[in-house]
């Protein structure tokens, strides 16, 4: 069995960070899309 090295810990921290940022980015785009569709539905000329 291999023990976890410092290098693996750092890489995992970076991978998890990027994962969280990407998921947040997707959620933000989804929320803005829903919001803009709502704005457009209320005012089609906007």
């Amino acid at each position, binding site marked *: 069995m*291999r*023990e976890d*090295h*410092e*290098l*693996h810990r*750092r*890489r*995992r*921290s*970076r991978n*998890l*960070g*990027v994962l969280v940022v990407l998921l947040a980015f997707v959620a*933000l785009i989804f*929320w*803005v899309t*829903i*919001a*803009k569709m*709502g*704005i457009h539905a209320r005012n089609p000329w906007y």
Partner: protein
Amino acid sequence: MTDISTAQIGPVARSAEPEFRDFVLLLKPRVMSLVVFTALAGMVAAPVPVHPAVALASLICIAVGAGASGALNMWWDADIDARMRRTRARPVPSGLVAPGEALGLGLGLSLISVLMLSVFANPLAAGLLAFTIFFYVVVYTMWLKRATPQNIVIGGAAGAFPPVIAWAAVTGEVSTASVLMFAVIFIWTPPHFWSLALFRNDDYARVGVPMMPVVVGETSTRRQIWLYSLLLAPVAVAPAFTVAGGPVCLAVSLLANAAFLRGAWRVSRRTQALALADNYRAEKRLFGVSIIYLFALFAAFILDAALAVVVGPIGWPVWF
């Protein structure tokens, strides 16, 4: 995860595997927080309702754009950062992040933040953000910073843009109120930064950055701090009489200006010998007051907007 056994790896150089936190530090999170706050004030003070999703997305884009320019600044200035006490622990000079990674991250985030702001808000706000990043990185960092003692005066414009961008993101235009917000930060920057430069003079002198105290001396810098503070006072009161201002803005700007002018006057009357004797106490105090000053002024915009929501129109005079 790649298959690397621990036996193959010796002590890892920090630059070999930066953590996520190291990349966050590269974006100058403290500067980002000030940018987010002034942008939030510009957004809240704008007299147009905005959907929370669009507001949050626009604020994130402005913050990321500011962070991207911070990363590009650290990439370019790594040589002098390594020799200054205040900056030697930054990710690039300390070896936490490789210069190429800082450059890549800075360019990538610049592009993403500008494109996404154009999608989330409008092309005007995106164009202003792009110009701000260009101004901070190319005009200030690459050109002015090492060339002229007026570096911080002109370069300060980059830090003054966030409320204008936020205002444009909400209203789709640049107005007198947002220009006055810009002017407040623009004129506030020199006395704020020179009060720091006075007690960090040796750092800048060692690396050859022509900060005002290094080039023209402490006496002249102290006089200029006072002159800029005098100029700042009326400019900081003026936004109270725009569509963004109100009674809270007026009260806070009067009190904050009194404190700022008092501190600047003290600093302007001191000699270098006196400052050395008490370890630059008045200068450090003015630096601290200047941070609270800007925070208070922009918090006042938010409070005035909240007041307008709670009590409704109060017939406040709008002169500008």
